[in-house]
């Protein structure tokens, strides 16, 4: 029963990666802003879920709209006040500014809420479901379903809405888009806001599963970059499939071969894939999502 359980837990892990990568895919994959604060923003959002639950006594899933809205506002401010100033300049400026932002956010969390683990409880999230010989918590099943819905939302947003079309236009040809009457600065800010709101969605679905502490988002932030690049920049379904692939490979390798080498294995797969297909698995087919 090891292999089916490993695959099931890998799918759950991959779904988490896909959730975290969705927002980054919009910001980095489509709009091409190198956001190294992705992990730190996830940490802030997790604390947001914890605070909302403490303040209102809500089940963590019910905090989703509020956390997403707050994160959207935060994302808009970050883009307008910080990243917007270095758009069009060297990429290293974006990298360094977002890296610095990550340090500030993490240490702010440490100062405000300390280093101790915080936890968020859901009345039914810890219940275990068994089917076809595998066992998963309700929280993991909800995360998988939520991940699928989030990916679908992102695709529809980019392809079926005027805002999404504008974002894609600006991502492809910002000068032409401006000539066509699109307010480029506002589009970038909206894209960052939506991307950060998606981080809020991810946090609401992850909070019942993971302990919350100032470094909680770090490893997920790194994995989000791997997933977005492996899937092909801007490819929504590519990133989702890459996330599932990585989650399953990581957990199956860990279960059957070695836990300690599983992360190294994932990075090895990434390196080989990038050598074989530099644009990502779905990079060429779905360049504009």
């Amino acid at each position: 029963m090891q292999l089916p359980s490993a695959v099931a837990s890998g799918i759950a892990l991959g779904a988490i990666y896909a959730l975290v990568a969705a927002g980054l895919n919009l910001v980095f994959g489509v709009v091409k802003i190198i956001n190294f604060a992705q992990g730190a923003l996830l940490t802030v959002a997790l604390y947001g879920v914890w605070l909302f639950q403490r303040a209102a006594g809500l089940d963590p899933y019910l905090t989703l709209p509020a956390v997403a809205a707050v994160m959207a506002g935060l994302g808009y401010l970050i883009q307008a006040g910080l990243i917007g100033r270095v758009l069009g300049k060297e990429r290293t400026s974006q990298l360094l500014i977002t890296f610095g932002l990550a340090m500030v956010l993490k240490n702010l969390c440490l100062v405000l809420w300390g280093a101790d683990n915080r936890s968020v409880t859901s009345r039914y999230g810890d219940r275990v479901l068994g089917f076809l010989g595998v066992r998963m918590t309700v929280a993991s099943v909800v995360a998988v379903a939520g991940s699928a819905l989030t990916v679908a939302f992102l695709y529809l947003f980019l392809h079926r809405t005027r805002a999404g079309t504008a974002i894609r236009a600006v991502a492809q040809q910002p000068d032409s888009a401006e000539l066509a009457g699109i307010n480029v600065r506002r589009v970038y800010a909206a894209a960052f806001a939506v991307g950060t709101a998606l981080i809020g969605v991810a946090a609401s679905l992850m909070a019942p599963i993971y302990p919350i502490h100032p470094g909680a988002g770090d490893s997920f932030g790194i994995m989000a970059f791997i997933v977005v690049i492996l899937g092909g920049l801007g490819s929504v379904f590519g990133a989702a499939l890459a996330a599932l692939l990585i989650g399953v490979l990581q957990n199956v390798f860990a279960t059957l071969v070695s836990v300690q080498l599983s992360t190294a294995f994932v990075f090895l797969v990434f390196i080989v894939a990038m050598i074989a297909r530099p644009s990502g698995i779905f990079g060429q087919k779905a360049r504009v999502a």
Partner: protein
Amino acid sequence: MSLRGISLRGSVAVRLGCAAVLAMVLASCSGGGSSSGKVSEVRIGLVFPTSGAMAVLGNDQENAAKMMLNWANDHGGVGGAMIKIFTADSQSDPGSGATAVQRLIDQNQVQVIIGSYASGISQAIAPVAQRNKVILWEVGAVSPTVNASGGQDFLRTVGTSASYAGADVDFLLHYLAGKLGKPAGQIRIGVAHEDGAFGTSVSDALKALAAQNGLNIVANEAYAETSSDLTPVVLRLKAAKPDVVFIAPLVASTPLFWQAAKTQDFNVKAIIGSAGFSAASFLTKFGAAGIEGVYDVEPPAVEFMNTTNLSADARTVLDTLRAQFKTQQGHPCLVHCGDGLGGTYVLVKDVLPRAVASGSLTADSIRAAASQTDIPDGGTPQGFGAKFDAKGDNTRAISVIMQWQGGTLKVVWPSTLAIAQPIPMPSWSQR
């Protein structure tokens, strides 16, 4: 060349010579402490992680150590010499810890550093103390790789990670084997550990003790503390069908492991953890029923320890200071508070008075005083004794087995310190 030029050069030379002599005199007054006559003051620096990722427990160790130093000052000092306390934050970072120690030595001329909570920080601090001939009095770091070279200015009161393994095996041999109704050699043991210095040192010590005692380790799983999912660890352990599991995690991985164990319905007769298994967040996350019967191995949580077998003085000091700690900090004096309190007790009650009485307070005199330390078991607030070996480690330090019972982490082994009897660990279906 004029006579006036020669005179000027001679005058400069004299001035330079005086400055050099003055510098030598001042240098002899710093770091190494007073060297002759009556000692009226002892300058002690506390270096703990009071900010950063380790701050929660680092603060407990520092506050407890400070409390013990203040208690000594309130009771006549150490051999008549009053303690002057200086503090610096290692910021949960080895480099910052080393810088903090150097600053305390340079600016405050401390003669002893009490630290460090974490092995990585202690490893960075120890060479600085050694270089400056200042004693590092270690009350919290447990990795045997700290001071592996055997520097003479290092003294550690708490047991190394080998003591964790020792307590695990002692409990297995003298209690669990009887409850399982099997010879110890037939008990299947699963081991899991974070792959850093702490977890690896505990695992290595367990392997060595298992080999000595003919025990059967059927699985040994190392994992990164930053892992996002510990289901594979649980699946591999489950496949090995252990009777008992010893796990050495840090704080972050503990809830992930326990949730994975619950999800995969991984049941064993006993799980003995450490670190995160004694954290308040473990109880908060899973509730009392969710962790009922789970064991933890560490130096004792002194709030929930039997003190009747302590010496009268150790018991009096412990009763007074753990009540004071609870009032001041708002939570009980547990493992790391016990480390700070108990470790500093040996310093102020035994070693420093002897060093002060020698008439000189230097690293050498403190080390010489420590070599005469011979406190029997029960003679310190942590319940064990104190006797330092050539590498500065306390050969009488032990770790104890504690168990979550009704939401409280109680000492259950050894019997001299136990406040409750061990209870069977329920299966997941019984929780």
